[in-house]
């Protein structure tokens, strides 16, 4: 009987330990909040739900989801759990972000951009947030590699953020990923006030003529190949990211690999998103996640989105000083990578001022170029930061 009583604490050690440390409890609550946001508010549910559940799995005391102890020949060893195995295979090797990029490439239609290449420039201007946030992070006291990793939140691009974070500052991967996807879901909340602050009612009412051109099949097929070559030659570290994005797009536009294109858009995208989400959730262990860094990263991530939006809008306003045909400066805000959310937000905002003003195609063009701009910016950071360390 007394043996049984001695055994009880060991059997229920999970329950008895649970209430001795507040961090796992907070993390489990965060996981539940993410799941609620995913289900109730439909904020990026495909990512936030697996991330939330992954966070719960690894914060249960003595959980074997991340790692577990085992005794081999009387020696205690720590073995990786299924989430750590997924992490080592898919994130440490950067395989998951690359596969996601193939899927995204197969989903993107670059035609609006080919019809109006001018909007490419907004995809560059809206990357301002990356570099401005990096400077703020340095001023706060982060070392260069970590500041650049925090700045990358300004790409508004989950896979690029994961890729760069993994290369430059793996310890920040968990909070960076959560911040990237949370703020992407919050684009409709973050962007409108910034745009309104920087533009007048008159500017938001500017109507723009949309000149549509036919895009030949040759141009459509050449585009992903040429982009890969140019970006790769100028910034070799961009080959993995931009190459996989453009490979996915080539599958889509060439018309002879329909099955592969559909597989990339559906099966590949869904499967990798699922394992990526739950693996990222697995990195959110209380003892590593709950610290000042996470708080600072969440704050700086918000700043990065604000700077991005401001960069795009101000760039459009500067262009207007020299142009006869004025641009609606709200279009500049769509130059971030959050596709298609940002273009919808801009279109809605413009129509609030003038219901007959249609700027959706222009916003989509700027938004698609934001995808290219963010990958190029991320690759340049990967190339530049090691040179200064």
């Amino acid at each position: 009987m007394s043996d049984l009583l001695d055994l009880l604490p060991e059997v229920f050690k999970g329950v008895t330990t649970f209430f001795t440390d507040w961090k796992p409890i907070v993390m489990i609550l965060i996981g539940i909040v993410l799941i609620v946001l995913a289900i109730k508010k439909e904020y990026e549910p495909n990512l936030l739900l697996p991330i939330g559940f992954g966070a719960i799995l690894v914060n249960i005391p003595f959980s074997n989801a991340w790692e577990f102890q085992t005794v081999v020949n009387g020696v205690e060893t720590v073995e990786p759990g299924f989430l750590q195995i997924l992490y080592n295979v898919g994130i440490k090797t950067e395989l998951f972000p690359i596969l996601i990029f193939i899927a995204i490439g197969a989903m993107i239609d670059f035609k609006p951009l080919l019809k109006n290449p001018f909007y490419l420039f907004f995809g560059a201007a809206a990357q301002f947030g990356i570099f401005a946030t990096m400077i703020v992070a340095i001023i706060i006291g982060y070392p260069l590699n970590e500041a650049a990793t925090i700045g990358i939140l300004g790409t508004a691009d989950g896979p690029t953020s994961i890729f760069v974070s993994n290369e430059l500052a793996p310890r920040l991967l968990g909070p960076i990923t959560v911040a990237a996807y949370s703020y992407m879901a919050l684009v409709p909340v973050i962007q409108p006030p910034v745009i309104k602050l920087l533009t007048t009612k008159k500017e938001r009412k500017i109507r723009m003529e949309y000149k549509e051109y036919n895009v030949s099949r040759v141009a459509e097929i050449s585009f992903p190949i040429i982009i890969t070559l140019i970006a790769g030659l100028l910034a070799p570290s961009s080959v993995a990211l931009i190459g996989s994005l453009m490979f996915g797009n080539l599958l889509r536009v060439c018309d002879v690999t329909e099955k592969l294109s559909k597989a990339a858009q559906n099966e590949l995208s869904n499967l990798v998103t699922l394992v990526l989400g739950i693996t990222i959730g697995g990195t959110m262990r209380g003892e590593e996640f709950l610290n000042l860094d996470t708080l600072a990263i969440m704050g700086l991530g918000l700043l990065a989105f604000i700077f991005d939006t401001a960069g795009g809008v101000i760039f459009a306003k500067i262009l207007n000083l020299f142009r006869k045909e004025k641009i609606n400066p709200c279009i500049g805000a769509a130059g971030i990578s959050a596709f298609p959310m940002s273009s919808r937000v801009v279109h809605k905002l413009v129509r609030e001022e003038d219901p007959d003003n249609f700027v959706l195609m222009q916003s989509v063009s700027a938004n698609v170029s934001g995808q290219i701009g963010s990958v190029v910016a991320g690759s340049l950071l990967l190339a530049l930061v090691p040179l200064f360390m």
Partner: protein
Amino acid sequence: MLSKLIDNILFNALLAFNMNTLKDGLVIAVLGLGGVFLVIILLYIITKILGSFTNKKE
């Protein structure tokens, strides 16, 4: 509680701030943003050329 936290962050920032890192950061920012624009300008030219061969105004 919040003001203590902010004080803590600012104090840590003051301790960790390094002027050389800031200079490096500014150089990276200029090269990085300039580089993005350079790549985009090249892509713009290429896209224009691609378009000029075969595109017709609708």
